[in-house]
């Protein structure tokens, strides 16, 4: 009798890429819901736009490259990119910027480099930074959370903003947007205000930005679930949040009136989303255990440095992209000690 002869192991394999990506998407559901709760319809509309464009771009790119599209589209990675992008940009983002961002993320950053697994940069973050530099006004025009908004945006308002490019009936852009907590902090500190004064602003919640702190909590919950599922390793989130916390803590202890307390850094901007969902993108991160600790730590430090002394209120995207560049080098110098070899051998560490 004749048999087929596949490669070992002859078992049921534990895992597949689609499942990894699906777990990430599931873990993002609480965060998406929280964003929608605080910002309204703009979030799901942008999400839908981004997902549609991402999948279409991926399909087109695969077709142009002569690759079978089904297996790659089924890996759900385009959906993860679209979702992360959506959660990073303002919910009022004009439709064509969402489309442009996704075409850039999938078409240029991902597929031009060879598709999933070959891209040196995180596609969602590269697209965000590309848009932020090219269209800074649209990318920083955040509406306030609905409970703070003098004119909360409803479904039709959002459709008008996103597709029509104008604020609802008679209002100016200034009336519908407001500084983000991180932006406000930056501006106020720039005017030499004390933290205790700045803290009086309604933008503040219990420990982070109002609303933002709860969005961060839901990201944290999703992230912990990913850890529990062993979909991500603890090293990058722990070291990134740790790095940010230590830097923020140090400066806050030195001068609590000109440096916000550490929890503010963790719970006001993109730190939590970045730590569990963006920096952990396996394709672009360091892969050795020690390398992941260094990678995460440096992202955390960079976030603090850029937020405090750099030109932008938030810095997760820049920090991640900068460390994406460093990841191969980090891997090179953090090779684990191979069983039966000595730690002092060249290129190895314990």
């Amino acid at each position, binding site marked *: 009798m004749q048999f087929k002869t*596949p490669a*070992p*192991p002859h078992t049921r394999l534990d895992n597949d890429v689609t499942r990894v990506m699906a777990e990430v998407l599931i873990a993002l559901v609480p965060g998406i819901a929280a964003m929608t709760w605080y910002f309204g319809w703009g979030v799901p509309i942008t999400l839908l736009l981004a997902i549609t464009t991402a999948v279409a771009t991926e399909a087109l790119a695969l077709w142009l490259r002569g690759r079978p599209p089904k297996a790659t589209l089924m890996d759900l990675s385009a959906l993860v990119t679209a979702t992360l992008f959506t959660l990073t940009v303002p919910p009022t983002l004009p439709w064509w910027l969402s489309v442009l961002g996704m075409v850039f993320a999938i078409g240029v950053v991902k597929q031009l480099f060879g598709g999933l697994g070959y891209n040196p940069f995180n596609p969602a973050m590269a697209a965000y930074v590309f848009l932020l530099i090219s269209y800074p006004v649209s990318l920083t025009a955040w509406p306030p959370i609905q409970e703070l908004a003098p004119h909360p945006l409803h479904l039709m308002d959002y459709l008008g903003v996103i597709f029509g490019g104008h604020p609802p009936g008679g209002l100016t852009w200034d009336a519908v947007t407001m500084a983000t907590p991180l932006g406000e902090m930056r501006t106020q500190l720039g005017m030499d205000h004390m933290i205790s004064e700045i803290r009086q602003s309604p933008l503040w919640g219990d420990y982070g930005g109002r609303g933002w702190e709860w969005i961060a909590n839901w990201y944290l919950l999703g992230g912990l679930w990913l850890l529990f599922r062993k979909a991500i390793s603890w090293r990058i989130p722990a070291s990134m949040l740790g790095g940010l916390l230590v830097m923020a803590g140090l400066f806050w202890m030195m001068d609590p009136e000109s440096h916000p307390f550490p929890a503010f850094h963790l719970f006001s901007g993109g730190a939590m989303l970045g730590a569990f969902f963006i920096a952990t993108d396996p394709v672009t991160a360091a892969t050795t255990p020690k390398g992941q600790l260094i990678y995460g730590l440096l992202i955390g430090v960079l976030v603090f440095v850029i937020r405090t002394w750099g030109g932008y209120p938030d810095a997760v995207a820049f920090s991640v992209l900068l460390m994406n560049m460093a990841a191969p080098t980090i*891997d090179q110098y953090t090779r684990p000690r191979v069983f039966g070899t000595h730690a002092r051998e060249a290129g190895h560490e314990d």
Partner: protein
Amino acid sequence: MSVHRYPQPSGRSRRLWRFHGGVHLPDRKALSNTRPPLRAELPGRLILPLQQHIGEAAEPLVKAGDRVLKGQLIGRPRSYVSAALHAPTSGRVTAIEDHPVPHPSGLSAPCILIEPDGEERWAELPEPMPDFGTRDPAEIRERIRWAGIVGLGGAAFPASVKLNPGRPIHTLILNGAECEPYITCDDLLMRGRPEAILEGIPILLHLTGAERCLIGIEDNKPEAIRALYEAARGDERIEVVRIPTLYPSGGEKQLIYVLTGKEVPSNGLPADIGMVCHNVGTAAAIADAVLRGRPLISRLVTVTGGGVAQPGNFEALIGTPVADLIRQAGGYTGRGDRLVLGGPMMGFALSDDGIPLHKAGNCLLLPTPEEAPDPGSALACIRCGRCAEACPVNLLPQQLYWFARAKDLDRVQDFNLFDCIECACCAQVCPSHIPLVQYYRYAKTEIWERERERRQAEHARRRHEARQARLERLERERQARLRKKKAALAKPPAKGDDPRKAAIEAAKRRAAEKRAALAAQGKTPRNTENLTPAQRRQVEAAEARRAAAAGSDTQE
């Protein structure tokens, strides 16, 4: 890698070490370990590959048509690292010819084919050595070598070689971990014949000079642990150690680490750290050879998986065709779609059930598509690093994969490719379903091949250089002679006569004489007469061509 305490059959706990990585797998041992092993029927023919072991193939001592007796030596080891081969039953040698053998390549190799006569008549066997303790270890090793014993855990390395480490040994490790899923032949051996294993231990201790023996058994085999623990009671030198079930605890280096916390050095052997490791089945076979004078002619083999009707273990003669064993295990259920020799992790898929059971054959596995689904084509590596987390050797499988794929054979060695034990943990956890071990095997083969070519080129270069040197030496000698001659000629001519002119005159004279002689015979001299044989052959070939051309012309 860490140390922890683990409960032991004695009731106390013991320090054990945990290697990096490893994977927990559904063990599926209950499929085949619920009934005692059956004696397999005598097959219609036996196929005995001359090479069933690591090292050189055996040299056949019989020829087609010979009658052989059970246990008769029919192949002798060709060199030190080689193994003897015996007739598993009495019968007639029908042929010595190429036949498909158990090898991942699926290729054929020389085999001795025996047609059993059903009489099971034994050959004269050597004397038992109950007094082995007073004998020279070399003599006992010779007996083990005669018996054709190789590592029965699957590696098939000649046991007598492994028992001659040439270094002081303090600890003997017996491997009863049986960490691969499905396989239960060691389990049943430990449960059914613990005394045979324990008989082997004093022999192994005597041969290696070790003071103590540790028997490592995974805790998913409580009966085996109990049986060996009870049997070994009272022997201070032996400790039966219960270890956690974690694939690949049964890897030689991993087991040694789990039991002792000592790492066998990279590119090294257990003997480098004073240890020797043998499979429990090998210990029992050694006891049979030394104490009963019996060669290795049969082994326990597990036949299992959803693809066979009645999974179980069989005491089968070496050389029994796989199809015969499956028939005795109730035959195919029709649900198995691959036939694996060995366990699911390290075994290889066979294309045909006509191949024979060999000495290293511990398991025949027929998983159903539910047990081992086709993973589909591999996706791109997403660099998730799970492979590195699972690797028991702490390699970076993902980097090895990139370098192997890029055929960067230097980098792949720099990343310790040769420390890879091919346990397939990395492939097991890979979300992209990349057959990683295939890439590593490929890279290893390429490197061996390149090494071989390099050695050949080196050899050729040396030969070329030697030839060059010889030619130069000859040339120098010729020049030297010439110089001497010239020097001799440069001396003032003897009687004023120019010797050169004289020589020319003499040659002219000789030519004239020759012409005259030829003219006397009525011939004119031709320039084809003083040809070398090579020139003559060329001329003849040309003539033949001309003739042939002429012949074909006339045919048209």
